[in-house]
């Protein structure tokens, strides 16, 4: 238990759970990309034919999220309390916007996640377009996604949320490398660039889907 009350121990927990969430984002992007090759309905069907696997995965994700959020919030509160009186003038030479807003981008991600689950997983926010079946009798995920993102408000929410995730990761990726103690003076600049790179690649990957739908490049012909 000493590990979980120590400063560095909790940082390492943040880094491990952050890395697991990052791994999930990569897997999830691969899943989403199946929309480009027309396999998204088949993918949805496959996942839902394996309830134990899906539920085990969801449980693990829930725990990872809960731990990351719990320690993220407590660390942020402690760090705030460590400087009760602010400076009249404070100039940061190195600290970045993304680094200083980790707790806020994190909390935005939580809000988005709740909406995202209500929208696509529980299909409660747009039941009219979210519950039809395709000609093979599978849930028509493709139709749900296309009709959702044709709505500017919904697409806008998703794109904004991806910005929050990209900001979170552009600090988070380089941060976990340092937390795991893998840095030397030589590696830090490269690791920082790579972290931004990972954030940008994931951002472009995720945002491409609402974008091609808004632009009418991908459409539903039913």
């Amino acid at each position, binding site marked *: 238990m*000493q590990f979980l009350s120590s400063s560095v121990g909790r940082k*390492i927990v943040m880094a491990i759970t952050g890395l697991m969430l990052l791994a999930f984002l990569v897997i999830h992007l691969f899943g989403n990309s199946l929309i480009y090759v027309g396999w998204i309905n088949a993918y949805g069907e496959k996942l839902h034919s394996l309830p134990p696997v899906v539920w085990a995965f969801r449980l693990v994700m829930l725990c990872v999220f809960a731990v990351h959020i719990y320690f993220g919030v407590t660390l942020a509160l402690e760090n705030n309390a460590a400087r009760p009186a602010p400076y009249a003038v404070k100039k*940061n030479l190195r600290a970045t916007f993304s680094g200083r807003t980790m707790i806020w981008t994190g909390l935005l991600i939580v809000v988005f996640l709740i909406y995202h689950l209500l929208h696509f997983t529980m299909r409660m926010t747009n039941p009219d377009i979210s519950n039809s079946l395709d000609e093979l009798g599978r849930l028509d995920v493709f139709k749900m996604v296309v009709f959702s993102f044709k709505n500017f408000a919904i697409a806008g929410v998703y794109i904004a949320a991806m910005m929050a995730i990209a900001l979170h990761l552009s600090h988070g990726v380089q941060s976990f490398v340092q937390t795991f103690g893998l840095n030397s003076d030589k590696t830090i600049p490269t690791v920082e660039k790579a972290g931004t790179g990972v954030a940008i690649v994931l951002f472009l990957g995720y945002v491409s889907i609402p974008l091609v739908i808004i632009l009418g490049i991908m459409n539903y012909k039913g």
Partner: protein
Amino acid sequence: MDLTLFVWRQKGPKDPGKLQEYKAKNISPDMSFLEMLDEVNEELVMEGKETIVFDHDCREGICGTCSQVINGIPHGGQERTTVCQLHMRKFKDGDTIYIEPWRAKAFPIVKDLIVDRSALDRIIQAGGYMSNHTGGAADANAILIPKPAAEMAMDAAECIGCGACVAACPNGSAMLFTAAKVTQLAMLPQGRIEAAQRVCVMTDAMLKEGFGNCTNHYECQAVCPKGIKVSFIAKLNREFIKAQLPL
């Protein structure tokens, strides 16, 4: 040159304190920043007012006593420079300069620009040492130390404990300070014996004193007058992980 200063004045730990405006007139560009404040203080003495209280000792950048946040940057923003080594030629005639104390919960303000930094001493007391047996003087080269290890230990030992890292850190963390001592001792064979215990008790002591946690902003390295690097924090993290392993 003539300058407008906004200086933090606070009568004591309980006083709310406020920024007060002063004029610094006829300042020579060759003066150090502290000499400039000495001039302002002389004026204040003439006027029968209370002088601005600030910490200083060696005035040659080695003791780590001087401690002022100048225009939002601890030690004023000149690379690898303490306030006492900062010169007025870095400023322009007519400049406005904000001068504040280190701000952190763990550094209570004593008066004006002086803070109590004994929290850093208590981090050292917790484990920033190595235990040695006394006795006859040991042979100088009895324990061999590889050159790169000795160099790294010496680089870490450059820390003068001024606390600028804490003052700059958005989280008020003393991680760079702690990491410098952990690294210095962990690099040397004599220090390895207590290494695992040391990294744990020192980081725990840091938290207990009310410092924040490191979130890898690296703001500390940017202001450190001695060029202590955040790669030492990576080293501390490695030492911490090693300390958790059963071997």
